[in-house]
């Protein structure tokens, strides 16, 4: 008899003993032993059942957590990576020009060897940005996934409804979280902000970079506008990235310290159901349909 069984045996014995004492009845030894044996068996079975249920639950949860979907393909991820590296280089080498009177800028120029060096680095970042912009245009026109993603990124009236619903949800006025598709309005905002920023920054930047070429083509005040626009949009973009984008993908307590999906490409089923229920449902119906079609009739 092992220790657990002995404890169970003792507990059953005690239970019967107490009950008999309370009711002031006597039982013969044999019946009492049978009763005890049955009681021990029932308790053991119940405990066993509970344990199995719990194990099953944990296993299922683990499975769903380990069940991943591919959210972003390699092409998509590399575009983001190139863009991120390019933008960081541009911000680091660009802001000291805008804030050239500050101590940080002075230290930066001292460290890099002055504007003659830092502007070369800035143009490396600019080249990455230009490459990614051409690449992305090709992606959303020439590839099927790209075309599909771009369609899903286009703003729709549902985004406005989602926005209103999300505000209600955040304020506690509604229990229902908006049901997002592949891209939520937050992600769409990010995308179009970058789109607008890229067009402005690349056009004004090219004008300033190749000023000697453009001097014979456009009037001088265009350079003044380009300078101002480049500086102001840079500020706006930097703030949008640091405040908005980094909040959503880094500092938001739901994803802190960071949301790895854009680098790994994978999203857990759990998160998928939570954050992109519509896309999940579509995916399931599509897979079901596919499976039905595949079944030989």
């Amino acid at each position, binding site marked *: 008899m092992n220790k657990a069984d002995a404890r169970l045996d003792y507990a059953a014995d005690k239970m019967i003993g107490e009950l008999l004492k309370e009711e002031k009845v006597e039982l013969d030894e044999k019946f009492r032993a049978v009763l005890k044996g049955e009681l021990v068996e029932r308790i053991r079975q119940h405990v066993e059942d509970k344990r199995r249920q719990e194990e099953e639950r944990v296993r299922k949860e683990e499975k769903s957590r380990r069940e991943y979907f591919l959210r972003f393909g390699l092409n998509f991820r590399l575009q983001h990576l190139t863009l991120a590296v390019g933008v960081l280089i541009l911000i680091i080498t660009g802001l000291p*020009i805008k804030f*050239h009177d500050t101590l940080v800028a002075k230290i930066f*120029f001292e460290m890099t*060897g*002055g*504007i*003659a060096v830092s502007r070369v680095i800035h143009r490396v970042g600019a080249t990455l940005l230009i490459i990614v912009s051409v690449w992305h245009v090709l992606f959303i026109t020439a590839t099927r996934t790209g075309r599909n993603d771009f369609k899903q990124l286009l703003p729709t009236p549902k985004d406005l409804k989602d926005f209103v619903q999300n*505000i209600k*949800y*955040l*304020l*506690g006025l509604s229990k229902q979280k908006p049901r997002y598709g592949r891209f939520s309005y937050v992600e769409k905002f990010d995308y179009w902000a970058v789109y607008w920023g890229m067009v402005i920054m690349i056009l004004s930047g090219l004008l*300033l970079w190749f*000023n*000697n*070429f*453009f*001097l*014979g*083509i*456009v*009037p*001088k*005040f*265009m*350079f*003044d*506008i380009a*300078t*101002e*626009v480049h500086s*102001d*949009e840079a*500020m*706006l973009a930097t*703030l*949008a990235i640091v*405040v*908005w984008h980094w*909040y959503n993908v880094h500092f*938001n*307590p*739901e994803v802190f310290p960071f949301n790895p999906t854009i680098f790994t490409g994978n999203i857990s089923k759990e998160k998928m159901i939570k954050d992109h229920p519509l896309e999940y449902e579509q995916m399931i119906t599509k897979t079901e349909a596919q499976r039905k079609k595949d079944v030989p009739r």
Partner: protein
Amino acid sequence: MTALLTILLAFLQIGSSPQNTRCFLCHGKKDFGVMEDGKFQSLYVSPKQFSASIHGKFTCVQCHTDVKVIPHFIRPQKVSCLQCHFEGNTVGAPVKWMPEKYKDSIHAKALAEGNPNAPDCETCHTTHYVKSPSDSTSQTNRRNIPDLCGRCHIKQFESYSKSIHYKALENGMLGAAVCTDCHQEHDVLPPSDPRSALSAEGVVRTCAKCHADTLLMARADVPVQQPEAYSESFHGIALENGMVKAANCTSCHGHHDILPASDPNSPINPKNLPKTCGKCHPHADKNVAKGKVHIIPSERSAGIVFYVYTFFKWFTLAVLVFLFAHIALDLSGFIRRKHARHE
């Protein structure tokens, strides 16, 4: 007999320092001089002008210390200004940093190298008629500086005399820039010297000394925002951070012969701008004249750039208010849900 008389005279002078009147007995005569190497060298000193000078109250022998008896038969040594003008002197001669500064200058360097034309103190300040620069008859007075420097620097004077600065000076605008305002007074250095006020980095500060002076520019009716606008421009930022080839004030405005844009000979006249900008930007054509120069985006005078600036200012503000509000809502929602779960 003459020798005896001289000794007698010398004897009489022992113990008393000779008065200037004694010196002027000879040196006060206009035709007094000596023949040296076949040339007549005047030794005349005007008693009137000397007594009007800042040193007029001193006796001749206080500087010419090696003259003990008059008449003197030996040639007195050259007087050095540093005999009195040194730090800690007891006769009360003002010593500022001037002699020290002069030592660093290209003039002092040339003199030390043996250039006979290099100026010493007395070249500018005169030998016997030194006057304070604040005295309008002094040749170191602002009004007379161009003539003084122009005595040697003829070409530069000729060029400068065409400039708006000289015209203003001639019209009695004494605040107008003269040679010493840009080249410094005593520590004149070539622009290639980094200590020079006219080095590539220094030239902007040098022009800004006057052109950022609101009162002075108001008097001269010249806009005052140029230096500020320049330092905020890419040329200004690049120059400030180590790109010496970036355009500074003189790259476009010239230097000695600075003229306003309205003058057809000015390098910044709209007609001449393609050529001026073309010095650095090979494709510059008449496009470079289309637009304002030295603009401050936050000021209405910047024209279209002001509207771009204003748009972005409000746009950025609006976007950020929205973003922060959204984030605050998101966080509050998160906290509320967490509380609800715990209860």
